[in-house]
């Protein structure tokens, strides 16, 4: 049976179990549900869970483990001289075997025979059928492939049997457990709880995945470039080390990127936080429902505009505008019409990114502010506080944890943004305290080092992974600090 068919049968068994168990519970209750511990639906769900969950787990495990078990046994049957080859070659050989095995079912019996006795060129034959082979196949590979096909078939058959049997057995067990005092709801809720736990573990798995997918490459980078040069270097200048290039590998100083990241993020937050917070406060506390229901989605559009659009907006409109403005201002003040704001600058990037981030602050904060119970507002207004005082002294403190969460997310987005920075602040890695000069961020460099024409094993590319890991650790520390702050100032209403 194909996997999807098995899944379908499991579903059918599950539904059947549900129906039977709940009707059985109904019958047991004798019309008075207080005789039962749980509602009949819970008994049904309990039986369905028993029918489907174990069998699904077995199915998943089987599907993921059996290939490697079969692989080991096939490899064990390889001739000794093949086994003596280096591991990489062996892997390739096994790749061939599985490719042949993929092709075998597409061949007729004669063709298989032909292949086995060597009268037909297997590579060409399988190529015809759309299965590419990396090289010429040796007899032991064909043998292995046949073996593989056979074993896979057996494994699948057994798996189908086991899984379906398990499902039926589970359903029966679930059904048998139906008894008035049986705590079906607790059991079902326990399963749900595990579901929730699994969902939250996805976040953990993502983290592990991210760290793992970067760690080994980052380690390779640090094998080529000393960590101290990376962490304490103040010059970012990875040179082009192309094919047979003569140039050296350049310098990979983290500091200018980090400074740029923090600076640009800071300016962006300087725009986004006040604007977003005030917008949220206005929408939640002052605006008429109509204005609010219009303004909120409008501002949310800002979050959906692709960042490249912001980037070009910064490059073509905001940057030159600020430059010309500074020219005029300088001219009026000093008489020297020299622009002091560069067209590409921290300021430009910060402002434009800040605009993009407004809805992150405004929409979330608005929801949280709206959720503060009315009694809090009444209490303060009744004492003669103005609305703004109420907001500042009562509502915002009560909404603080949520708002801080929103702000953290906003800051995170600011750190993770690329296109706006590239187009608005450029890619020049410099250290400067003047916000009117260009700088760049870690993220920009991660993207630019990962794309482009360099080979993947050069430190120029690998540095992206080192940057990624470092950024990860730094933001982690910032987040821990933020959590500590929130804990300290949290106010629980009621």
């Amino acid at each position, binding site marked *: 049976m194909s996997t999807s068919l098995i899944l379908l049968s499991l579903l059918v068994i599950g539904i059947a179990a549900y129906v039977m168990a709940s009707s059985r519970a109904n019958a047991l209750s004798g019309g008075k549900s207080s005789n039962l511990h749980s509602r009949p639906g819970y008994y049904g769900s309990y039986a369905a869970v028993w029918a489907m969950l174990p069998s699904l787990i077995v199915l998943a495990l089987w599907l993921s483990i059996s290939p490697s078990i079969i692989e080991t046994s096939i490899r064990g049957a390889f001739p000794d001289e093949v086994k003596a080859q280096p591991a990489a070659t062996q892997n390739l050989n096994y790749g061939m075997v599985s490719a042949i095995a993929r092709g075998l079912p597409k061949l007729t019996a004669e063709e298989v025979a032909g292949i086995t006795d060597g009268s037909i060129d297997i590579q060409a034959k399988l190529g015809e059928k759309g299965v590419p082979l990396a090289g010429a196949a040796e007899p032991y590979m064909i043998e292995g492939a046949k073996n593989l096909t056979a074993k896979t078939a057996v494994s699948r058959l057994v798996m189908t049997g086991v899984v379906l049997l398990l499902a039926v057995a589970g359903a029966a067990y679930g059904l048998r457990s139906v008894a008035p005092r049986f705590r079906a709801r607790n059991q079902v809720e326990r399963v749900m709880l595990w579901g929730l736990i699994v969902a939250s573990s996805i976040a953990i798995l993502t983290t592990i995945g991210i760290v793992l997918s970067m760690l080994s490459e980052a380690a390779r980078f640090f094998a080529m470039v000393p960590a101290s040069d990376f962490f304490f270097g103040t010059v970012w200048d990875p040179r082009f080390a192309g094919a047979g290039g003569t140039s050296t590998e350049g310098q990979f100083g983290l500091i200018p990127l980090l400074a740029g990241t923090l600076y640009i993020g800071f300016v962006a937050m300087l725009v986004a936080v006040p604007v977003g917070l005030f917008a949220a406060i206005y929408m939640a506390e002052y605006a008429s*429902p109509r204005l609010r229901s219009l303004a909120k989605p409008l501002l949310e559009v800002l979050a959906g505009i692709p960042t490249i659009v912001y980037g070009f907006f910064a490059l073509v409109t905001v940057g030159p505008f600020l430059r010309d403005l500074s020219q005029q201002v300088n001219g009026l003040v000093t008489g020297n019409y020299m622009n002091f704001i560069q067209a590409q600058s921290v300021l430009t990037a910060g402002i434009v990114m800040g605009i993009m981030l407004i809805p992150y602050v405004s929409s979330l904060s608005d929801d949280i502010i709206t959720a503060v119970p*009315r*009694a*809090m*507002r*009444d*209490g*303060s*207004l*009744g*004492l*003669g*506080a*103005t609305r703004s*005082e109420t907001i500042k*002294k*009562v509502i915002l*403190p*009560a909404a603080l944890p949520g708002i801080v969460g929103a702000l953290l997310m906003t800051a995170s987005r600011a750190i993770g943004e690329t296109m706006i920075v590239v187009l608005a602040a450029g890619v020049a890695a410099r250290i400067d305290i003047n916000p009117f000069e260009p700088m760049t961020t870690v993220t920009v460099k991660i993207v630019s080092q990962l794309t482009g024409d360099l080979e993947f094993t050069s430190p120029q590319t690998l540095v992206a992974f080192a940057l990624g890991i470092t950024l990860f650790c730094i933001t982690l520390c910032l987040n821990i600090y933020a959590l500590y702050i929130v804990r300290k100032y949290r*106010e*629980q*209403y*009621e």
Partner: protein
Amino acid sequence: MNMMSEAAVEKALDKKMNDIALKMIGKDVSVHYGEKRALYDVNLNVRENTVTALIGPSGCGKSTFLRCLNRMNDTIDNCKVTGKITLDADDIYDPNIDVVELRARVGMVFQKPNPFPKSIYENVAYGPKIHGLARSKADFDQVVEASLQRAGLWNEVKDRLHESGTGLSGGQQQRLCIARAVAVSPEVILMDEPCSALDPIATAKVEELIHELRTNYTIVIVTHSMQQAARVSQRTAMFHLGHLVEENDTDKMFTNPDDQRTQDYIMGRFG
């Protein structure tokens, strides 16, 4: 102090006799919550330096009327108030009136205790702070202590002033809210069932407070305890189904009311 207070009482009584010092006047006050009408043309005056009790069965509109007096109904979206209410001859629903000043002058204790999720100290100091009634730390300490004393809560909380006000028992929260309202010394204090969660002793303390406040302040109190109304108030108004049934001197009200319904209600023959 006692002397003075007595003098004040006398003065108040004088005024009452002449029927002049009307602190607040409600004329044809009607309230709608959306479609539902909650008050029907209520004409009720609040006399200065007097305790006015509002009584009536649950849901008859006492809180609604009370909330009209300092415009707390403004905060309810679908609530519409018509008619005229004056405070010291100023129409409080006049667009030019300043709600904040109004509420600073007409303070309120809500029916459901609603302490801020802040420390007990901050809860009480909040009003004086926003109105600038205290400056130095010492001022604040003094105001906080005095207010908590008056609400009869000081002894219970003096060791935990900096713990959260939401961690108090129900009755303690109610007294905290009274302390909070008293701390800004408004001219009129509206109290919506201030003793509902209080034991007799605490109730007595609050009643004493009301008595004491009366010399300088005007008080409107909602209560469902006839005894309490009789004990603390000079004037009583009886509501029923959104109508003002009767308004009268408390003594008269509880001995010989004009309206049959009042009589029935007070006698517990109602419903």
